[in-house]
């Protein structure tokens, strides 16, 4: 009903002036001018969308050997956002995976002209990112140290050097810049046409003027698509519909939620300068001025990401809104001012056009890639956050690999569709969130920033209580979690001023919470955890769990098992704790953002057996982490049950009463290595139990604590956290968790063969803990994550998380160390000996700090505690 031709005529007439003035297009390929052939009745893959993303997916699928592919485009190829794209290909990215995608795209586009014979407008201009502030320069330096370990040339330079690279630039307000000489510009339309051309030579059929009304789904699998020109049966469907991906996703009977929302995006085209600008003039990115400037036909093309974006298409495709996509000069004024400040010489340059091209944005500024959790064979690649050209090539490749091989060659969890659920699909939420996300593209990204919009969606029943006690909140998967508690009378900086790469203003607050966890007792509300219950009438539950998890779950009732949920190559799909409630039912706790992913994985691998029941009980329980040496006292006072280790050993789960409330699931673990208990409380008792804990705990010095304290505790104890340290490419052997894998538990489990092999061959990377030696907490930049690790001066890996350890009074970084062969650059086996016999340095924004590497946590440093348990306890949560 909806994907009705988005008045193709409108688009073309509206954009004709631009088309006529832009470089003459080579519309000679068969792909661009398809004969009006009828659609095939069936195909293996149907791709929706003929922009740079869709054509890239088609190109890569055909490269990987798939031939039976149909690409459908409702209008013309490359006529949507791709047409209006500024065409900048830049590797200046914050996320490793994005950086890799951009790097691959760059290399792909570079050789595309040679491969296809189609001009792509590829010019290696280089890009210069400007810093107007010291903080911005730090941010650039952090990117620079990552780029250089990836072998991408880059240079931090002084303003004067910038002036030598660009003839027009005003440098008086700059403190520095980063030059990436291999960044490029392309004509994104021509790149798409070239990709389409290459794909069609490999057998991909391309049909323009064909719109899809909905995807047909049977029994949770894609069976075909319904178009305005008939049906096509297919096994796989790829939604690359850009702006319209959200609506297309919802049009199925079994809706696929693809959270993205459009915003208007403006850029300016000018006529040529008197002395035309060279086509290889570097692209300027001035994030503090919120603008980018590239050379374009002797003049410039300049756009930006304003503070007050204009969201569009909230109510779906709207003809009126499309027609009203006018130039809005008043809206562009701040960006124009910024442009003229950067290049005052442009005052006399004549305007050609202000282009208004909507772009789609996602709730976390990362693109959406992957298979739907609800419909098998339904793949998505959309929501490029106006970096479609930079990511199109790489993202297309990963998606193609995923479809053909079952998984991509890199960890794409940060981009995975399954990081979102239906809860991010509200139009109001998306509209508000993208208004924050779009300016964020050029905002300074400091450690630990939180989104401010779309908040307070999921909250614990204790939210108001905790908020009144000074809680400051962060959000994960829509759930509000306390970061720390500001004591009465103390005041923190306002949000804007608190942005820093150095010691944050909450340092002492978290310090005292940590101290209380170590010496007395604290309560942390950890209700956001994903909680599933699996039960069966017979032994089916145990059987399926034994097959899905690497640890042995056939334990006595009441035991808790930490275990990985591994994939075929032995990597962590999830890391969780499972309590055996009784012989036939299990309670499973996983990280908050696993709610969709884990559910989909379990559903996919569980037999279709009506006697086997899987239930998401996340909403049913409030989870309180009672942490610290006095937790035992508090709890035994409230339950009249002795809680000492003799009566309640570590890693046990009992249902008991706490205060008046009965049936509270108490587990002797804390996710941090500290002594204490997790309480899973049916939500209606939450307030009661909390009140009781606080009043009884008073004499033991109880207080609230937040996730920052938790993180400091778990990192100093060397606990890995899924999603941060662990990913689908990390095996238990690589992070020292061999003891949680029972290769000989008597049944086969997913990933067993891979682990057997790895056990024989040895691991090629090893999870290691680093203690920064010469780092001044007060004066030096703080580590975050993603910092390069150097061993004896050679790059060996990246950090994955870091925290200040209040016990060691040092910074602790966790990360993976590889042993890269000096000649082949291939990773070879890493032995403990290799780790132990190296001099390490961590590179924080270009400055290297000495670090001591450790493969095992400091047990001796922390008082006389139950040492054995520390190895058994797990922390997989808390950022």
């Amino acid at each position, binding site marked *: 009903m909806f994907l009705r031709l988005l008045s193709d005529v409108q688009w073309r007439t509206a954009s004709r002036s631009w088309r006529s003035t832009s470089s003459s297009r080579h519309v000679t390929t068969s792909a661009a001018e398809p004969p009006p052939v009828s659609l095939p009745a069936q195909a293996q893959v149907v791709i929706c969308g003929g922009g740079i993303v869709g054509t890239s997916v088609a190109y890569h699928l055909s490269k990987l050997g798939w031939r039976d592919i149909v690409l459908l485009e409702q209008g013309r190829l490359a006529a949507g956002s791709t047409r209006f794209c500024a065409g900048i290909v830049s590797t200046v990215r914050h996320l490793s995976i994005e950086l890799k995608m951009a790097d691959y795209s760059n290399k792909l586009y570079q050789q595309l002209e040679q491969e296809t014979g189609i001009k792509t407008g590829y010019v290696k201009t280089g890009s210069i990112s400007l810093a107007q502030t010291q903080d911005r320069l730090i941010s650039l330096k952090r990117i620079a140290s990552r780029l250089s370990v990836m072998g991408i040339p880059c240079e931090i330079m002084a303003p004067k050097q910038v002036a030598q690279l660009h003839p027009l630039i005003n440098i008086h307000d700059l403190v520095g810049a980063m030059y990436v000489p291999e960044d490029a510009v392309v004509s994104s339309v021509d790149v798409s046409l070239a990709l389409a051309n290459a794909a069609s030579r490999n057998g991909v059929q391309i049909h323009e003027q064909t719109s899809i009304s909905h995807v047909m789904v049977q029994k949770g699998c894609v069976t075909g698509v319904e178009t305005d020109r008939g049906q096509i049966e297919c096994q796989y469907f790829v939604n690359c519909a850009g702006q319209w991906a959200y609506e297309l996703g919802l049009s199925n009977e079994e809706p696929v939620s693809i959270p993205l929302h459009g915003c208007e995006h403006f850029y300016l085209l000018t006529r040529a300068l008197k002395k035309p600008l060279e086509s290889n003039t570097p692209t300027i990115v001035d994030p503090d001025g919120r603008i980018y400037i590239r050379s374009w036909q002797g003049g410039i093309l300049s756009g930006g990401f304003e503070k007050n974006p204009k969201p569009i298409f909230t109510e779906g495709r709207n003809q009126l809104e499309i027609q009203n996509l006018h130039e809005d*000069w*008043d809206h562009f*004024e701040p960006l124009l001012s910024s442009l003229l400040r950067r290049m005052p010489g442009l005052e006399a340059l*004549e305007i050609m056009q202000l282009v208004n091209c909507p772009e789609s944005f996602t709730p976390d500024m990362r693109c959406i890639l992957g298979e739907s959790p609800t419909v098998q064979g339904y793949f998505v690649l959309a929501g490029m956050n106006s970096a479609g050209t930079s990511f199109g090539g790489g993202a297309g490749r990963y998606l193609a690999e995923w479809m053909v091989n079952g998984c991509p060659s890199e960890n794409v969890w940060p981009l995975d569709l399954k990081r979102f659920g239906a809860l991010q699909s509200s139009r109001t939420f998306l509209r508000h969130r993208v208004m924050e996300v779009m300016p964020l593209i050029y905002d300074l990204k400091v450690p630990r920033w939180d989104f401010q919009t779309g908040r307070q969606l999921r909250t614990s029943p204790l939210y108001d209580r905790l908020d009144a006690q000074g809680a400051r909140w962060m959000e994960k998967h829509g759930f509000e979690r306390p970061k720390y508690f500001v004591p009465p009378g103390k005041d923190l900086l306002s949000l804007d001023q608190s942005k820093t790469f150095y010691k944050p203003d909450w340092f002492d607050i978290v310090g005292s919470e940590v101290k209380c966890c170590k010496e007395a007792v604290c309560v942390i509300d950890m209700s956001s955890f994903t909680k599933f219950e699996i039960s069966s009438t017979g032994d089916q539950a145990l059987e399926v769990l034994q097959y899905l998890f690497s640890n042995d779950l056939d334990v006595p009732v009441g035991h808790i098992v930490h275990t990985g949920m591994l994939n075929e190559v032995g990597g962590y799909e999830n890391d969780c704790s499972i309590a055996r409630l009784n012989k036939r039912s299990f309670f499973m706790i996983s990280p908050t953002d696993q709610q969709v992913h884990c559910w989909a994985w379990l559903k996919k691998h569980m037999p279709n057996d009506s006697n086997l029941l899987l239930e998401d009980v996340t909403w049913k329980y409030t989870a309180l982490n009672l942490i610290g040496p006095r937790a035992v006292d508090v709890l035994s006072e409230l339950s009249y049950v002795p809680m000492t280790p003799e009566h309640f050993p570590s890693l046990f789960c009992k249902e008991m009463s706490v205060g008046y409330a009965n049936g509270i699931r108490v587990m002797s673990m804390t996710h941090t290595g500290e002594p204490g208990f997790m309480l899973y409380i049916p939500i209606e008792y939450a307030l009661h139990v909390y009140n009781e804990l606080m009043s009884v705990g008073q004499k033991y010095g109880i207080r609230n604590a937040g996730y920052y304290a938790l993180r400091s505790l778990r990192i100093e104890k060397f606990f890995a956290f899924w999603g941060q340290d662990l990913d689908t490419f990390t095996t238990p052997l690589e992070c020292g968790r061999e003891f949680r894998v029972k290769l000989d538990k008597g049944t086969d489990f997913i990933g067993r063969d891979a682990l057997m092999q790895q056990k024989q061959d040895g691991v090629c990377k090893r999870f290691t803990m680093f203690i920064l030696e010469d780092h001044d907490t007060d004066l030096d930049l703080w580590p975050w994550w993603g910092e390069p690790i150097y061993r004896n001066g050679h790059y060996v890996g990246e950090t994955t998380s870091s925290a200040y350890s209040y016990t060691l009074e040092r910074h602790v970084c966790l990360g993976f160390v590889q042993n890269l062969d000096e000649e082949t650059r291939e990773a070879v086996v890493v032995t403990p000996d290799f780790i132990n016999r190296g001099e390490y340095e961590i590179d924080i924004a270009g400055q290297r700090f000495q670090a001591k590497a450790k493969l095992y946590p400091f047990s001796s440093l922390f008082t006389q505690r139950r040492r054995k348990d520390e190895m058994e306890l797990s922390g997989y949560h808390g950022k």
Partner: protein
Amino acid sequence: MPAPTQLFPLIRNCEIGRIYNTVCYCHHKHLCCLSPHLAHNHLRCAPQKKLATLCPKENFHQFIHARSYVSTPQRFYLTPPQVNSILKANEYSFKVPEFDGKNVSSILGFDSNQLPANAPIEDRRSAATCLQTRGMLLGVFDGHAGCACSQAVSERLFYYIAVSLLPHETLLEIENAVESGRALLPILQWHKHPNDYFSKEASKLYFNSLRTYWQELIDLNTGETTDVKEALINAFKRLDNDISLEAQVGDPNSFLNYLVLRVAFSGATACVAHVDGVDLHIANTGDSRAMLGVQEEDGSWSAVTLSYDHNAQNESEIERVKLEHPKSEEKSVVKQDRLLGLLMPFRAFGDVKFKWSIELQKRVIESGPDQLNDNEYTKFIPPNYHTPPYLTAEPEVIHHKLRPQDKFLVLATDGLWETMHRQDVVRIVGEYLTGVHHQQPIAVGGYKVTLGQMHGLLTERRARISSVFKDQNAATHLIRHAVGNNEFGAVDHERLSKMLSLPEELARMYRDDITIIVVQFNSHIVGACQNEDF
């Protein structure tokens, strides 16, 4: 000291003095003794003294110091969106509908809004189109001693005016319809904000009084065409008379009985505009004001007052009141700028305490419900009360022929006029209304424009519109200035947020209820009508 604790997080010590200084003389009550902060048993005290002893500056400071530990800086300001939600809560806009793409009315539409200081607000507003005659009615009503009277007047007055304007035949038609139980011709089309309510309980009672009025008009049939000025005066006087009578007669229903008494014992001023083509009539009773915004040929704005304030600042009013009473009362009838030393407006609806004889008052109170008897105020007889009535609801009516340069009319209660000069009011509204129209989008469309030229143009546009920020409603815009203006005449967010975050109990000390209607005239039609006339 009944000062509420919520105030203290809101106001820093240093600000207290500043704000406090303006309190005492800036915001007087119509009827001082009814200030909600003053105990009822202090009626006889002079009002200013009352306020002064209540919160001497030093004490206030000490008090703040003593309690300063409760202040949390985060609570200090309302954010701009919070401020907006308060300011916009009561805003209403009406655009006269167009026929055939043309608006044939001399009115383009109106914006109205009100900002409470009393809780509940005592101001009321009304707007309606007359359906059986031509023209539109707009009015603001400022209640005192409660909101009962202003509420009743806001519901009823326009019906009285409309009926007074109706020709004999229409009155007959209506009476026949009522008599035979047929559907009644609608007389008024109301333009109401959802918060503007009508009391359902009293509608029957009100209707019967109104019917009696038109029956008398039918009987009186003079055969002459109705003069608007006369109709307005008659309607005002008749309604006030009905209010008084209803209270004397009472009602068997105890709720209604209490209601009519509350209406009669409270009071309200009224400022009503009747616009029909180029004929603008303003009927005013009390101290609300009607101001015409005139745009001079050079584009500047000037204010033309279309009403006389009925208060002690008006010499002829003092003269009038004195002449209506014996020489012996000359000193007592106006005291401390108040009628009998008590009432600020010299004309008002209701307020039977200033109209009825002492005997009548006593009789009604004694036979009235207990609530009335327990009320100290109603039992209290004004001092020097010798020759009632001292008060009238008769309006002064001013007629004005609209000219093309007359762009808009501002009707507002004294809450606006005591904080802002009329000239400023007219300038702010004028610039707002014209600024809105200057906001056409610009397009390059084929012209040769350089980046520099475009930048200059945009910067200029930005400067022009920055003062008009966010408000879609002229009345809201005016309130924002009235409450938030700093010494330079610009809106100061900090001040605005402070004023709006005052707790209910204190708001009334810093400002009065403000009610504003801004009527925009249609210059094209006004120009055309004018030409026809000559």
